[in-house]
């Protein structure tokens, strides 16, 4: 697997995240975290624990930009923990998992399921911890729904654009 490509993609996506997506303003409910794209599309050739450590690293970088030390870290560790189990659950043809994780290797249905579940889980975790109480949970749900929609569209759009 070409790791320079993974790192290059991470840098570009993080730039987009902190320069553009962190500054979206839409009634305070639209905070998409498109940087999870890099985590979701990472190949699963590495040991599971290394995966989680990479997730923690990506989370800490994001937290630095959001003044939310620990929140993205926790959410990223969580999705990186669940990722291999979810992949083996949604992908019928296990042969495909040896390749890159993308729309084209997994197929439309499996990839969309995979992305939707993990993005929703990640965003819900981030917003719930950030709210730090159940009294805003209705708002958290709206925030999760709107933001996840944008993130999911971005990830699927990215996959559609980079098809070759």
């Amino acid at each position, binding site marked *: 697997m070409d790791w320079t490509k993974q790192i290059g993609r991470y840098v570009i996506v993080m730039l987009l995240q902190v*320069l553009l997506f962190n*500054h979206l303003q839409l009634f305070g409910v639209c905070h998409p975290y498109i940087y999870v794209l890099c985590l979701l599309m990472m190949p699963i050739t590495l040991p*599971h624990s290394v995966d989680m450590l990479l997730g923690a690293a990506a*989370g800490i970088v994001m937290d630095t930009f959001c*003044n939310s*030390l*620990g929140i993205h870290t*926790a959410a990223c*560790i969580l999705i990186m*923990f669940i990722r291999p189990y979810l992949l083996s659950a949604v992908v019928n043809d296990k042969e495909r998992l040896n390749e890159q994780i993308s729309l084209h290797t997994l197929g439309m249905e499996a990839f969309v399921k995979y992305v939707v579940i993990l993005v929703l889980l990640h965003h819900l975790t981030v917003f719930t911890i950030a709210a730090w109480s159940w009294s805003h949970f209705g708002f958290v749900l709206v925030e999760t729904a709107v933001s996840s929609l944008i993130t999911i569209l971005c990830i699927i759009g990215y996959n559609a654009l980079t098809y070759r």
Partner: protein
Amino acid sequence: MQNLLKILLRYSNFLVFIALEVAAFLLIILNSAYPRSSMFSTANRFVAWQNRQISEITGYFSLRTQNEQLAEENARLRNMIDAMDSTDNRATMHHMSAKAVQMTTDRLHNYITIDRGEIDGIRRGQGVRNSEGVVGIIRTVGRKYSVVLPLINTHTNLSCRFAKNDYIGTLQWDGKDSRFALLTDVAAHMVVNPGDTIITSGLSPVFPEGIPVGIVENSTLKEGDSYHTIRVRLNTNFKRLKYVEVVQNEDLNEMEELQHGLD
């Protein structure tokens, strides 16, 4: 012992997960109780730098909102100053911020349209100023908009005085240059120097005394004339006028009625 190791190995991923999550939540709790680390926050030099770049770019897009807020704040502060200034502790002058939505500067009869009207308490004859100085006088009042007769309209007459010695004159516009107006009715015996400051006289209920109007640019006094011809450089830059304040005098009606009663 061996069994324990086997179990640990078997669940090693889960244990790593738990350990990492515990660490993450420790970070969250410690950081929310007392943010120690400036490195992992936007106080981080690189993050702060990029955020400043962003705000410098996006700042331009919110300039309008910022200006509106500042204009409102100015009006509020001026109200407070007026309340402190008035000797009887009765604030009769109120300021209301407004935005110029349309204006001309290149005609003889220039007008400014502002986005405040009857529903905002605007009445004909109220004064209009901005932070630089006098702008004009309310002429026509609509429901939501009003038309201002600015200093740069040949119909305008404004009672002014010299800041240095309280001599009174009338400011008029000659229709030539939006930067200059003429001060008339200043008697020949009075010494006029370029640079003298002209302020509102306070003789009419339109403006309180002392709002800056302009600065004497030059004055001519021909042989036999009994009045100076004084060119005044106006403080207000009409070419880039955007936000104004309407001066609302509670006593405007009463003062006008009294004056009409005399006629």
